[in-house]
């Protein structure tokens, strides 16, 4: 994406991404998403359920829903040529299996990707281990996808 942009926007882009990231991280931290006890308490529907994280989704979705509605009235974004939205409507095996596996990992340790990155700020080795394993997991999936695709193209 940055290749398409004129060089003079790079500083602006970097700054805006940093700012949006900072908002995101502040929101995660403030909302309690980086507190694994809260997250696991939220998922513990049949135990001592802690409903507070419902409000994170409620706050996030309502602001995003209204914001997107207003933004999509424009024909294009401010600093890019076009809106880049996923177009697939397919409920396929990958989506289902991926979501289920992700949920297991989330329930095991209480981190999803955003809060895991945010929690790196607290400098605990466990978080670094988790993030490293998460990146390796992404790599494995990408390698496996490339292998499967290659095998489909060149069956022996």
């Amino acid at each position, binding site marked *: 994406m940055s290749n398409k942009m004129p060089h003079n926007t790079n500083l602006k882009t970097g700054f805006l991404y940093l700012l949006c990231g900072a908002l995101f991280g502040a929101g*995660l931290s403030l909302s309690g*998403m980086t507190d694994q006890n809260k997250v696991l308490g939220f998922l513990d529907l049949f135990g001592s359920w802690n409903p507070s994280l419902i409000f994170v989704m409620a*706050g996030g979705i309502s602001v995003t829903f209204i914001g997107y509605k207003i933004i999509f009235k424009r024909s294009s*974004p*401010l600093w890019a040529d076009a809106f880049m939205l996923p177009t697939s409507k397919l409920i396929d095996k990958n989506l289902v299996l991926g*979501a289920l596996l*992700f949920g297991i990992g989330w329930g095991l340790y209480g981190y999803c*990707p955003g809060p895991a990155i945010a929690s790196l700020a607290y400098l605990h080795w466990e978080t670094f*281990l988790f993030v490293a394993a998460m990146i390796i997991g992404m790599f494995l999936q990408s390698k496996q996808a490339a292998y499967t695709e290659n095998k489909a193209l060149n069956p022996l």
Partner: protein
Amino acid sequence: MLDVFSDNSALLGGAIIGLSACFMMLFYGRITGISGIIWNVIQTPKKHFSSSGFFLCGIILGALCVTYISGAEISPIQSNAFTIILAGLLVGYGTKLGSGCTSGHGICGISRFSTRSIVATVLFMLSGITTVYVMRHLV
């Protein structure tokens, strides 16, 4: 179990996350999905520092600021290295395979009524709830 302070800061925190997602859409026309942003950073050639890298640094910075102001130190839960690694692998593999996580599907996708995202969110919630049930009440 309702805790007014905790619920209000959860609502405010969620709204701030939504604001960040709106800015990303308004300026760049992009969905704010953290698993995708992480993958973007990994794929970026070495000598470049991608805009996604700025976003991840921002996340850490933002969390640091809130923790500094609130003074609330958060420690990770007690767990063994095996569980942490397994959980990390599953989160990484699953979000890559399912094209999104709590932010991309859960916040941005649901906000634009994407059927895929609604299905994914219901599924990872159900599987998370089931996992916690098994770990806390069966094992």
